[in-house]
């Protein structure tokens, strides 16, 4: 295995992550918080919480409820608005030197365009991620992802005015993800992020009421890992040339490798950051060890591995 020159860095349509492990949207704070607990500079990259044109206070509490191997959160995109982000958080985040992906959201096509325009050309922003799980004013408040044409409109508009690569963040809740993924790529997205938290609910049987102020929130954490992995696999099979960031329940290097084998170009870590602030660093180290053990040079090599084992294997024989 020695001799193979190894690098963890990956290139997604021009965004160069020093490691394939990126902090997921809404889970890494403003860059201030993790300081002292983890070295931001050791993240492959960071996706900001979803930024909206207008500030949002988000949902009333409670905003988190624990469930089996997961959490259901109803935050409601609390953020001070994209302008404040650019003025207050961006400079600090930029100083880390890691690629920043700004997540943009809104309740109408206009709102997305406004938010994206403010970010346009901002130094320190390496890419955009389009949040599509929010309510669409122009479609009875149903999520944007409930109509491929609406997703395409929004993603298209953002892509046209963006000077950096744009990733569309898709939910798992589609009968068939592939047409949605194609729609976003055709509309101009450079890549995809799979998956967003899955709509979920917890009821307090003692108090006879939903646990969350939002009533229905988003399920995240290890519970959804198989769902996210299936989503990544299906899209990667259909669109092998499209860079996909896999996200959902990733806590360990082994979890991350599952996604890279299934076809992800990079992974994002969300809920695990709440539990273990240094998870991304540990995961990156574990991926390096795995690559070394398999005699591979780069995370990109893993993408090919599953297809390569086409021939018959005797059961019980280990592949390595």
């Amino acid at each position, binding site marked *: 295995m020695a001799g193979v020159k190894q690098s963890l860095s990956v290139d997604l349509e021009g965004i160069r992550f020093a490691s394939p492990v990126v902090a997921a949207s*809404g889970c890494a704070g403003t860059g201030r*918080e993790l300081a002292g*607990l983890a070295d931001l500079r050791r993240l492959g990259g960071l996706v900001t919480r979803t930024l909206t044109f207008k500030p949002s206070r988000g949902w009333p509490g409670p*905003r988190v*409820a624990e469930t089996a*191997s997961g*959490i259901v959160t109803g935050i409601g995109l609390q953020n001070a608005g994209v302008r404040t982000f650019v003025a207050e958080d961006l400079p600090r985040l930029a100083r880390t030197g890691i690629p920043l992906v700004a997540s943009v959201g809104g*309740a109408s096509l206009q709102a997305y365009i406004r938010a994206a325009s403010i970010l346009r050309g901002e130094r320190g922003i390496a890419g955009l991620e389009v949040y599509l799980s929010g309510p669409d004013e122009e479609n009875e408040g149903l999520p944007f992802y409930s109509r491929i044409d609406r997703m395409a409109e929004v993603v298209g508009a953002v892509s046209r005015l963006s000077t950096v690569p744009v990733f569309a963040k898709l939910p798992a809740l589609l009968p068939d993800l592939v047409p949605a993924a194609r729609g976003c790529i055709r509309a101009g997205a450079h890549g995809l992020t799979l998956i967003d938290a899955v709509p979920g609910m917890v009821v307090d049987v003692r108090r006879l009421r939903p646990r969350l102020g939002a009533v229905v929130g*988003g399920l995240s954490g290890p519970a959804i890992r198989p769902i996210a992995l299936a989503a990544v696999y299906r899209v990667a099979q259909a669109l092998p040339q499209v860079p996909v960031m896999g996200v959902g329940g990733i806590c360990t290097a082994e979890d991350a490798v599952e996604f890279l084998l299934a076809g992800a170009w990079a992974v994002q870590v969300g809920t695990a950051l*709440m539990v273990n602030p240094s998870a991304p660093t540990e995961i990156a180290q574990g991926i390096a060890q795995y690559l070394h053990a398999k005699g591979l040079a780069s995370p990109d090599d893993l993408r090919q591995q599953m297809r390569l084992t086409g021939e018959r294997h005797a059961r019980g024989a280990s592949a390595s």
Partner: protein
Amino acid sequence: MRRLRAEILNSRKFGAFQSITLVAPEIADRARPGQFVSVAMPEDRRFILRRHFSIHQASRRGGWAGTLEFVFDPHGPGAEWLAEVKAHHFLDVIGPLGRAFAYPRAPSNCLLVSEGHGASSIFFLAQELRARGKRVDMVLGASEESHLFKPIEAKRLSQTIIVVTADGSVGARGSVMDVVPRAAQGAGTEVIYAAGPRPMLRMVAEFCMEQRIPAQVAVEEEMACGTGLCFACVVPVIRKDGSGYDNLRACTEGPVFNPARVFWDRWTSEETRAIPTPPEGFPSVVSSWPG
């Protein structure tokens, strides 16, 4: 804020509570009353979030230097697991977290009001106040005797103390608010500190506002990260200039707040709406919205 593998020096029961003392100098040296620590759960469990506990003791000097104590009521899976962990095992701990109680500048008479495990941080505060030459009086409440927090030690820490339990099993029968006015008057109270359940905090807050007594309360709100990353733990707090309110993170801007500025109607309301009012800043048509 530091994260470390901290050895358990000892873990013991008193009444309904479990007390754990850790060797955690990096945290103990910085810890102040009102702050808290978070403890990671074992990886093979179904419950994944860290658990959060107020700091009850943090010794900087003397024989116990570098140790930290927290006290809890083992009623759910996480705390039950924690209560079983034996001495000399290690815990993954982050702290000190959050903003501490502020001390009054002038020498003043402080009334410390707590209920149940809320007393944990209040005892720490009492020590620090006395060390600064303030007068400390206490109102100590609980549902019943086993949940009454170290009444003997409380006596040692305070000039006067009134004990109340909901069932009257010890002290007066009733709730802390039945006695706070009397206590405040008797002690010539100038500042009030409180920790405990939400309804109790609200009543104390309303009393302080009427009586124009400056006060600070330590709140508890469901937390995911405890470190400011996720905005799960917010409390609605009215702006200084009164122009509306902001949702502030209890783990970062709190858990200690000025009760006069907490938007109680909103924070303590638990209306269950079939379709909840949408996040502010968003349209009123929200038929579904995860995340």
